[in-house]
């Protein structure tokens, strides 16, 4: 993507002007986005993104710039501006020896998106549409979206690293609307993976549509969720959004390094109940949040975050690694070249426990069963988090009794992870987009079915 001589000259220029660290990130990405409404392709678009980001550190400060003018003149001028912004001066003259790093590919792709015609992709969307439409006669509208991209990245830095990688993502998202009398409710299902269209050999698009429709069909018949504090049983897979929001973000170096996280300074301490062990694993083959290397060129790894309630490690990127005295553990991520990377989650989940999901429900006298989740958010400094229930049921006397409509669940992270008292054995993961200061990145959340002894359920009082 960039000539190695130019890369070397830029890195040496940064170092010889006094920078502690210089990094060049280049990206070439081709993507497709298609939207089908009511069974017809409404909008199809293709995009190519191409640009370079430059970053330098000095004494705990970092500056970043990007452009899509890849000429050496432009890149060199941008570098000058970054050097000026940090007000640094060079003293030594040295030359960095650049070494190509072998990147081992753990995420085999059979069909690259550009090799597959758009009509093949439209056929998959059509199947998803039919799966939703045929589910029930209450389904009044179906919106199917299909995304894929093929991203090539190039990373070079003043540690002498040159690394290249190629990443493919494919995702199918269905929103179904059910209408009953004058009321409308929607249901959503959006699985994805780090692979090509072969994803749909593992996953029938018809079933993806049917799942979105099932949720809409249930919810349009449901009453309002109850309001107030109560036990909540959260189903597996995307239910893991609770850990992602309540705890995961607050373990990112982005807030920990400043002391701005409720979990800062708590390594080795008990922060969660005994039954909670959780990992962030960017290495899972072909998982939605996986990469061979992170966006700083560090190999991804499986990081054990919490073991039996004890905090074992944080998620650390290069910039914060020096401040915290902890090696980067492969989680420096960014949406694209328009963002400086920072510590982010990849595939984050609570490890399985001993209970059958049925046992957890049977042990609950009254509460909410949150079967399908929407997204959420958190303020790491205060721990206040929220996430939406897209499909809920009431639990009464150990039994699921009736469907209740979506409601937001809220709590404070540090309290809530101590209130997880039962963990099931049915670990599974779900796909989402995670937003933070380095943009929106694909991330898996996951967990087995769990119970939280109390959460505030944002429904309506009767």
């Amino acid at each position, binding site marked *: 993507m960039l000539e190695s001589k130019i890369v070397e000259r830029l890195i040496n220029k940064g170092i010889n002007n006094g920078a502690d660290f210089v990094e060049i990130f280049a990206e070439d990405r081709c993507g497709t986005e298609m939207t089908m409404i009511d069974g*017809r392709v409404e909008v199809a*678009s293709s995009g190519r993104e*191409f640009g370079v980001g430059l970053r330098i550190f000095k004494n705990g400060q970092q500056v970043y710039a990007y452009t899509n003018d890849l000429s050496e003149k432009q890149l060199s001028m941008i570098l000058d501006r970054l050097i*000026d*912004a940090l007000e640094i001066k060079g003293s030594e003259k040295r030359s960095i020896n650049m070494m190509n790093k072998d990147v081992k590919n753990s995420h085999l792709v059979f069909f690259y998106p550009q090799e597959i015609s758009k009509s093949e*992709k439209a056929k998959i969307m059509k199947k998803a549409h039919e799966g939703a439409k045929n589910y029930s006669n209450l389904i009044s509208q179906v919106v199917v979206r299909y995304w894929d991209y093929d991203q090539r990245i190039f990373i070079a830095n003043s540690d002498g690293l040159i690394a290249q990688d190629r990443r493919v993502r494919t995702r199918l998202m269905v929103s179904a609307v059910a209408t009953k009398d004058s009321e409308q409710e929607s249901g959503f299902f959006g699985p994805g993976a780090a692979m090509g269209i072969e994803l749909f050999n593992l996953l029938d698009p018809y079933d993806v549509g049917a799942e979105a429709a099932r949720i809409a069909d249930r919810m349009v018949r449901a009453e309002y969720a109850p309001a107030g504090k109560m036990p909540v049983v959260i189903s597996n897979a995307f239910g893991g959004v609770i850990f992602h929001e309540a705890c995961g973000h607050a373990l990112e170096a982005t807030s920990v390094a*400043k002391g701005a996280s409720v979990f800062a300074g708590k390594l080795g301490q008990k922060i969660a109940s005994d039954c909670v062990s959780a990992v962030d694993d960017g290495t899972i083959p072909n998982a939605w949040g996986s990469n061979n290397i992170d966006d700083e060129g560090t190999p991804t790894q499986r990081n054990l975050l919490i073991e039996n309630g004890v905090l074992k490690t944080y998620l650390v990127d290069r910039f914060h690694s020096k401040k915290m005295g902890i090696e980067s553990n492969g989680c420096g991520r960014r949406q694209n070249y328009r963002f400086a990377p920072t510590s982010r989650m990849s595939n984050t989940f609570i490890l399985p426990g001993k209970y059958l999901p049925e046992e957890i429900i049977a042990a609950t006298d009254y509460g909410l069963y949150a079967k399908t989740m929407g997204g959420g*958010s958190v303020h790491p400094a205060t721990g206040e988090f929220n996430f939406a229930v897209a499909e809920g049921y009431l639990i009464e006397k150990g039994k699921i009794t009736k469907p209740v409509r*979506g409601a*937001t669940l809220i709590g404070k992270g540090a309290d809530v992870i101590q209130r997880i008292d039962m963990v099931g054995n049915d670990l599974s993961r779900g796909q989402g987009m995670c937003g933070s200061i380095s943009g929106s990145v694909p991330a898996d959340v996951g967990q087995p079915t769990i119970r939280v002894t109390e959460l505030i359920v944002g429904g309506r009082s009767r």
Partner: protein
Amino acid sequence: MRIEDFKDKVFSYAKKKGFDECELRFNREREFGVVVSKQNIDNYNDADSLRVTFKGLKDSKAAFSSCEIVDEDSVEFLVNSAYENFLVTDTLEEDSIHDGSGEYSDPRHFEDEFEKIPVKSKIDFAKIMEQKAMNFDKRIAMVMMSVYSHERYEISIFNTKGLSLSESAGLGVAYLYLVASDGKTPKRGLKVRFGSRPNDIDPDRIVTEAAQEAISQLGAESIPSGKYRAILRRNVFSELLFAFMPIFSAELVQKGLSPLKGKLNSKIASEKLTIIDDPFFEKAPIKRSFDNEGVPTKEKSFIDQGVLTTYFHSLKSAKRDGIEPTGNVFTYKCVPLNVVVPAGQKSYQDLIKQLDRGVIVTALDGLHSGVRTVSGEFSVSALGYYVENGAIVKPVEQITISGNILEVLKSIEDIGDDCDLVSGSSYVPSVLVEYIDVAGSGS
């Protein structure tokens, strides 16, 4: 390659490929931003970029592509990939390319005074703002981010129907995200100010408001679940309105994805409420004379004394309804550019007196996930104050508010006179609503 040559090459190749008409939109962006924490530059961005979007039309069907580099490869990429997209697009809706009809106001030109400020002064702005916040009160425990940023974009649209339009827009943004602590529980304060000139942005006001907000939340508790009278403070009213703007999209209405279907010219809100989309609003930093489809923008109320007077139309949705497009296609389709709610008679303090007993909602979280635009239902995390006998008695945390946006709009009892630029594109007052559902704990 020069833009002019690139345009000619794309147009002639598109014709050769078989498109009937086509259009190119160039969006050149300049961004700068500095984030300071603990007097260090924590993040910094200095960027120039270009995005080119191609729209090709054949048999009244539109197909799209985009790229970021202007060269020979891109000419082929744009046209060939759009053509492949055309082949799979089987919508029955007719799209078009604008011919320049309608009345255009003068193209806007953004005088970028932010760019002229030396970088060092901008870094110092963020450092000083952080310092002032730390010195404001000893309960201010930390500044997570002190930010100074600005951006400018130049947009140009050319098409084969002879349309050729160009203008620029931009704004500056400063914000402070801080934490106050009483040694027990940390509380957050976040304030943002926007402006089209550096002088519009007063760092002292940001410091005072962010710090006071965080301090005033110290000692907050949840309140019991129930229906409460409520004031939605101007920033909260604005955020809630914006989360539901898709319901005003004609495209979504036509597809049965909005609760406003069939409600045109009927009463959907309190008659005290009027909401205007004003693309030329003086106090808003971004002003536009044409939208991203090249259609002239215009000032219009979309809720007039409680009555829904228009949806936001693209070329495509307007054609389907047999009316003129409304000039509302921007980053998203069929949205307003600047939302303006005319002030009511009551001061914020008078609204609190009138509330008598209830909650003031001052912050929301989870609007991206707790809002269902298909039904108008919402359930989101909130902060605020509890009011008794017309006065604030305590801060409130760990509650949610929920309801249906159309019920909320109808239950507006009064409107404040405290209009402010609470986001880069909304100038709204606080409103008093008759009731809202609160979920919380405690007694």
